[in-house]
């Protein structure tokens, strides 16, 4: 059931991206959807009753460890997501200065 939660979150925030009236809001929706993807990766790597893949100060009968590979992937994706968010925010700052608006529906500079 918990994997479904990710799906719902990403789906909802796609709606946010499509109907957004403010660029900052759009960027945050995108960022949340990205985080939902990361959580799904971690969920794929989870194991019930498992401990973190850090083999120090373990109890006497430690049990299995969770998937460290998915954690490494999620780490990478967090960096990717953060950098794209930062770039988009920089673009939003400049757009606000030059076009005078933050509403993506009001940006008419590249229509056909």
């Amino acid at each position, binding site marked *: 059931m918990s994997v479904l939660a990710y799906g719902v979150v990403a789906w909802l925030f796609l709606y946010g991206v499509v109907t957004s009236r403010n660029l900052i809001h759009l960027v945050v929706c995108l960022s949340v959807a990205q985080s939902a993807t990361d959580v799904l990766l971690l969920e794929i790597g989870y194991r019930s009753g498992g401990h973190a893949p850090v083999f120090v100060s373990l109890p006497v009968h430690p049990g299995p460890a969770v998937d460290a590979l998915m954690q490494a992937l999620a780490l990478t994706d967090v960096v990717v997501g953060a950098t794209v968010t930062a770039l988009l925010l920089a*673009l939003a700052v400049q*757009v606000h200065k030059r076009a005078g608006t933050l509403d993506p*529906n009001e940006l008419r500079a*590249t229509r056909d």
Partner: protein
Amino acid sequence: MDPIVSTSALIPATVAVPLGGAALMAAFSRLLPRWARDLIAIAVALATATLTLVLTASSAGHPMIYWFAGWRPAGGKVIGVDYAVGPLGAGMASLAAVLASAALVYCWRYFDSARGRHHALVLIFLAASVDFCLTGDLFNLFVAFELVAVTAFALTGYNAGHPAPLQGAINFAVTNSLGGMCVLLGIGFLYARTGTLNLAQIGQTLAGRPASGLTVVAFALLAGGFLVKAAVVPFHFWLPDAYGSAPIPVCVLFAGVMSELGLFAVIRVWATIFSGLPGHPEPRMRAVLLGLGILTALVGAVMALAQTQLKRMLAFLTMSHLGIYLIGAGLLTPLGLAGASLLVIGDGLAKSALFLGVGAVQHQRATVSETKLRGAGRGLAVTGVTIALGALVLADLPPFVSSAGHGLLVAAADQAGLPWLEFVVALCVVLSSGAVLRAAGRIWLGWGDSQVTPPETGTADDPGEEAEDRPDTADTGGERAGREQPGRRQRVPLTMVLPPLALLAIGLGLGLTSGLEEHTAAAAAAFSDRAAYVAAVLGTRGGPVPAAGQVTVPASAGLSAGGVLTDLGQVLAALGVAGLALSGWAAGLRRLLAAGTGWLRHLHSGLVGDQVTWLVAGLALLAALGGWALH
């Protein structure tokens, strides 16, 4: 020693050199004078080009597998990350390096600002493209994908003082980062199913067992994400916005390399992972890919005709040709893939020459609007010749490389029993090249009426680089001075005239190389051979890898009479289209075009909400089509 596994330092050097160069430039750009920065960047790019070209030659016999950090597979199970270097991938990487070098030479005068920070970005773009083409690991593919994307977003918005580049960059960034998310999801699903991230091992695990719902969805997500980058309908809406407003040298990189990378990834993923699924999915997948390719090619060609802003016109031309590459590769035969590869190289060189030529015009006349430029070509003769030649090469003028690729494509279509594809391709090529020739005629010969399609295309005219980037405003206090005389300027600098001509010359030289078609066909066959690839990577079969099935290049392809006639016919037709568009019937034709395609132009609204909606729809469509094809 296993003859396939390589420890040649050449392979990591192809990414270490540009990355190291970019890092040092980013660290010490303040200390270096401007000419030193430009020179070092060009040197690094040329070094990368040399390395990748050598790799292309040395991997021609068999793939070279390079295991990073020394982690070779143990007992058929992969532990580390590998590069699987084949001539097709290395050739694509070489194209990226050559185009990056040309773009950097061009940048010498284009980005004249005191702190040119674009060098590091271009070099990182190059390194990521090389990694993308050479890697054998799915997650590494994703990271390279994102790195190409991040550098591209930043470079698109370079002219941050105008709203159009900013909006183009935003549309680009939002849609492509959603595409990246889809790819990551697909990777997660495939990992959950197969327990590995290595392309060969995923393919081996999935082979033979019927495709589950998870596999189909993973395919849809992976293909969808990569097709966003490749700007295939309906994921393409960001492309004209971004390419129409990015700086010219950046457009060279985009048009020549970036979009093609998306297609490369789709075919790579298909060839290594999904082609082994049971139930003969090829014919149905072929139908899906061909459908998407034809749609993209047609939409691009028609929209290109309707444009009057030169960069946006070239953007749609790029998209149309991408559709043609997808048609070639989507035939899912080595011959079709070989045709598409040669077209990518030849067209990539020609498209870049076109963009650079338009850039020279923009530099001298401070506008890229066809209407405003009517008759303004006086004094820019060489550029005019370059642009006209580039358009003709794109129409498959023999004996340039593009015509060789076109010949292979036609032969492949015939072999697959779909000869009518040739007409679709010819139509698109003729229309898009005709549009460029029409613009050239209007600008240099002053032909055509002065009235252009009402309503004028909405995209803001692009006056080019920021005021502070122009050489005549380098001294302070002259912030606005440069803009007061936008008209006549000195002669076009050599660094803007020579690179496009050099690229066209390379296209001619390659086209005259004998045996080009055979080598490319062999490379394509090796690329598509899943079993041999898996054996090479996993080392499960010692000794030499069985040679890929021989691909015979039919005599009808290449420099045969039939092929040359067809290509010349296309060239003449393109000239004819341009002539018609400049003649007395032009106004009537324009009204006809507007009536028939006004709805299509209206759809390209430049609004990011619309574009994301189309993306979601496209994903769902791909999932349905993928389910039909793979089950």
